[in-house]
């Protein structure tokens, strides 16, 4: 595996289950047992009703492109040599939005509303990162 030259997540107690699941190829998000709301990014409280009765649920991993941009300038290490790349907000079927890149397709083919599904890339032994690709 070539060395990962992009930023890596810092994992804390409240986000560790998410990153552990990614390593196993699962996308999980949080749902509140009290108010039944989904939330993303993960946190130690329900951002809606402020209770702590939140549990992890496996997401379908499917969603649509809510919006995107084809990035043509970014001098940051790891991204400069990948230009142009697609930065996107994907709305999962569960109704929460995630930042991601749309991969495994021509950037010019990406459209708002396009169905996408999660795919995982192993960054190193400890960390695997979720991306999205056109739904197959």
């Amino acid at each position, binding site marked *: 595996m070539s060395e990962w030259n992009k*930023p890596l997540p810092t994992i804390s107690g409240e986000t560790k289950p998410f990153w552990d699941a990614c390593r196993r190829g699962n996308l999980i998000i949080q749902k509140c047992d009290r108010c039944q709301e989904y939330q993303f990014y993960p946190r130690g409280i329900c951002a809606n009703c402020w209770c702590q009765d939140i549990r992890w649920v496996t997401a379908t991993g499917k969603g649509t492109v809510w919006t995107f941009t084809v990035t043509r*300038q970014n001098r940051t290490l790891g991204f400069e040599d990948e230009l142009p790349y697609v930065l996107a907000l994907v709305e999962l079927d569960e109704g929460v939005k995630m930042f991601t890149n749309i991969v495994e397709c021509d950037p010019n083919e990406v459209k*708002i509303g396009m169905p996408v599904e999660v795919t995982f890339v192993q960054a190193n032994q400890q960390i695997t990162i979720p991306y999205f690709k056109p739904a197959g």
Partner: protein
Amino acid sequence: MPTVDLRKAAAIVGIHEHITRYAPDKSELQIQGESVIKALDDAGLGKDDVDGLLTAGNIRNSGLNLADYLNMYPKMVDNTTVGGGSFEFHLSHALNAIAAGRINCAVITYSSLARSGGISVGTGGVARFGHAKLDPSPDSFEELYGLTTVGLYAMIAQRHMHLYGTTSEQLAEVAVAIRQHASMNPEALFRDPITVQDVVNSRVISTPLHLPDCCVITDGGGAVVVASPEVARNCKHNPVWVLGAGEAVAHQGAGKRDLQFIAAKQSHEPAFAMAGVTHADIDMAMIYDSFTITVLETLEDLGFCKKGEGGDFVSGGRLQIGGELPINTDGGGLSSNHPGMRGIFLLLESTRQLRHQFEGTARQVQNCDVALCHGTGGALGSRHSGGTVILGRN
């Protein structure tokens, strides 16, 4: 209803813009210091009159270090840092403190060496300074994907086009109008008029935004002196009254907010209510123009036109001096200056216009009695602040 009538409880009595666009030989504290002194001189006040100090930024130019540098002992220090629009929040906070009788006179100041520091403000994420350790959230769920500031605005522009049929040519109208104003400002970085075709034919930075859709990067700074009615009465210039102020933030809402609606939607209502004015009363506006889409979205969510109609609204010269709603008459961030955070310059130019400082020249907005400033800080696509202030001539 507020228990205190804040309308005209404070006034802008002194201003100074540090006109430098490139100042590698100065420190940020020096630019702030020089600005504070000159703004107080503009007001006819001095060091001993100031009991509040407000600034934004990191520790290097925090209120603590600035009080040290200026050898001041303010009774109120406010370091609210919510991005480029921080200074509209500062004015709101100074208004509160003055109305409550806790201070009589505050100075708001800012400086930045973004240009001489070689900082890619718009086209690098948190990781632009090398891959520093990310915060567990939200950065660890965002920065992995190569977010840039321009990208976070471009995503909102892309969706605006998708939902409402807004075009690149309409976004370009914003850049063209503001460049026209820059041509009248001898201090502006870019002064040569441009056309819509110039904008849409230029390099794309992050689709759908072209280079002239993005603000410039400069050094610079300035200061604003805010005072109670009693102090204002004895200042050199006629006071520019704070009529209304409103503050808001917008964010992903745990993944559920529609960020096509920005913080301006929340902040403008209390500002208009406090001021007791309507949109028809606004003679000119200073709209934070980090990007052309920022202006279009802000005008919509401030209520100057309906959601989705911003593309038409910004077209046809409406935003130019002589038009229905002149904006950014100094040339804005798109053409004049943008040293990291631009919100203070909105207050400076609207004060100049309300003083009728350009009377007899093309830059003066005719019969300018009421001005609106709206500062946006952060990024439209992820999280941002919005501060609206309404100012009035005596």
